[in-house]
């Protein structure tokens, strides 16, 4: 719809509403109307990062807040989903299946700026972009995701820069390139994956990836091997379910090694790869390193990584940074509440808490004192069978944090194809809910 057509349609709808006459004016007089799309803007919100957190915030600010100026700054031209991206690595889905447009948000009136924010001026309330332009704001949302801590693993930064080693932990070109390396690997080759110590983005993600790569090898390169090098002492999510999948489906093909922290990456002159561990030196054909993580670069340069110099502490009622009130931070970059996972689902839920709070704040109202967030995370263990972990987190006003509700949540009884279908349904719904599709 063009802007003019939308305006006409809107005016028509507004007249129809107004023709309800006294009823509607009574509503206005009561002073309880939550919002209206008409009238002047009540505030400018700039959102940095169009992943699950930032895009959901844009959607819900427009849907719930109406006349708020919302600008979303995102580096990429399209949204590429990390969830389901492991299926692309396994050859069960294509990039197009996990790529979605930002047009739904634009149709709601969100101003989309493709670019990169390089600096936040919290005093002057504006952000600066790489192209030199500036965006002023009344409230700022950063949904920066994670960036990597490469210094503790010798040779890793250079190996990633050269593209010989891939992380595949931000969906997009990395996903495609890793898929191509797997396809190019000869049968009989070794694929090694390194998992960092917790906390990292998407706790079950590495184990799902191991299953998906193994499912590809099982069908197409049965003499090959998946080597899972986990810096942690055990599988970090859905442990029994993943261990059962490793045994039932990928026995002899997938080897899981706990307490195996990657110390060094060596790329030989002709591209041959070695992964050095504390007591071992492994020759591998494809090396996928999921590096240790921290809150995204823009959160760091804005001085917001005030928890262990890695994560952003937030006020959970508003999602504002405890280092810089007025700047709301969403998703993986936050210092997680107890038992709260770093997931796209959770970032989407953070965004709704922030959107509700920002609208209340711009309207001079108290914010919701009893927010709730929840998480459901599906992992594919085969091309069709899926396991979940779910949790519900209620705000605790005494300890000022979200707490998982005792007795709630849990994991699948067993992997199933029914949950496989629910997982794909979940993806369609969360993508639509995030991007206003």
């Amino acid at each position: 719809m063009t802007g003019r057509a939308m305006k006409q349609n809107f005016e028509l709808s507004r007249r129809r509403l107004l023709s309800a006459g006294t009823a509607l004016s009574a509503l206005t007089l009561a002073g309880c109307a939550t919002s209206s799309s008409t009238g002047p803007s009540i505030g400018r919100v700039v959102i940095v990062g169009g992943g699950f957190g930032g895009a959901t915030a844009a959607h819900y600010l427009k849907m719930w807040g109406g006349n708020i100026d919302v600008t979303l700054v995102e580096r990429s031209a399209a949204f590429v989903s990390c969830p389901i991206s492991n299926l692309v690595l396994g050859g069960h889905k294509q990039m197009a299946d996990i790529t979605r447009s930002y047009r739904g948000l634009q149709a709601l009136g969100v101003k989309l700026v493709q670019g990169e924010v390089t600096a936040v001026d919290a005093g002057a309330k504006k952000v600066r972009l790489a192209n030199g332009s500036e965006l002023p704001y009344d409230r700022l949302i950063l949904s920066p995701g994670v960036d990597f801590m490469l210094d503790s693993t010798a040779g890793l930064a250079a190996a990633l820069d050269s593209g010989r080693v891939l992380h595949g932990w931000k969906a997009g070109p990395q996903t495609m390139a890793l898929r191509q390396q797997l396809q190019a690997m000869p049968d009989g080759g070794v694929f090694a994956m390194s998992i960092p110590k917790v906390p990292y983005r998407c706790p079950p993600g590495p184990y799902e990836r191991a299953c998906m790569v193994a499912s590809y090898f099982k069908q197409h390169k049965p003499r090959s091997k998946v080597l899972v090098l986990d810096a942690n002492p055990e599988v970090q999510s859905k442990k029994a379910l993943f261990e059962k999948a490793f045994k039932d489906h990928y026995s002899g093909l997938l080897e899981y090694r706990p307490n195996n922290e990657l110390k060094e990456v060596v790329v030989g002159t002709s591209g041959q790869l070695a992964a050095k561990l504390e007591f071992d030196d492994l020759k591998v054909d494809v090396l996928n390193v999921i590096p240790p993580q921290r809150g995204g670069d823009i959160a760091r340069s804005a001085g917001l990584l005030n928890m262990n110099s890695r994560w952003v502490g937030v006020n959970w009622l508003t999602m504002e940074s405890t280092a810089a009130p007025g700047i709301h931070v969403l998703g993986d970059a936050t210092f997680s509440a107890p038992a709260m996972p770093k997931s796209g689902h959770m970032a989407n839920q953070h965004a709704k808490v922030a959107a509700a709070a920002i609208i209340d704040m711009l309207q001079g109202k108290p914010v919701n004192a009893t927010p709730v967030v929840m998480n459901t995370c599906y992992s594919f263990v085969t091309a069709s069978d899926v396991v979940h972990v779910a949790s519900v987190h209620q705000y605790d006003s005494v300890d000022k944090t979200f707490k998982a509700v005792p007795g709630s949540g849990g994991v699948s009884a067993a992997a199933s194809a029914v949950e496989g279908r629910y997982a794909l349904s979940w993806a369609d719904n969360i993508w639509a809910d995030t991007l206003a599709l």
Partner: protein
Amino acid sequence: MPRFPRALRAAALAAPAASAALGALGALGAFTTRAAAAAATALTLAAPCALAQDANLGRNLAATCANCHGTGGQSRGEVKSLAGLPAESIVAAFNAYKAGTLPATVMHQIAKGYSDEQVKLIAGYLAAQQPKK
């Protein structure tokens, strides 16, 4: 269902529809004058702002369901749409999940995370959403 007086109960169900329709461009086209009048009248009868606060609480709580059941309860996948279902049936399903009498893959675990009062608010909000064709 909440044991509210009838007018209050109607308002609790209708108020979110009014605010959602006012807030969302997309919903305006489908929103009928009659529905607007009904919603606004109900809100006027109920009057106090405390109720509007409650309306946002239902809206906020129901938004936690959207990742699986779709925005406003309008699912586009195999997982069930909840928009426009009778509030009583949503509450009954929640209670059955909590009690373990309704088989589920995940909802029996999720339902236990919400209080009875929260379930009523969620059900009221979702019941007031217009199901799409």
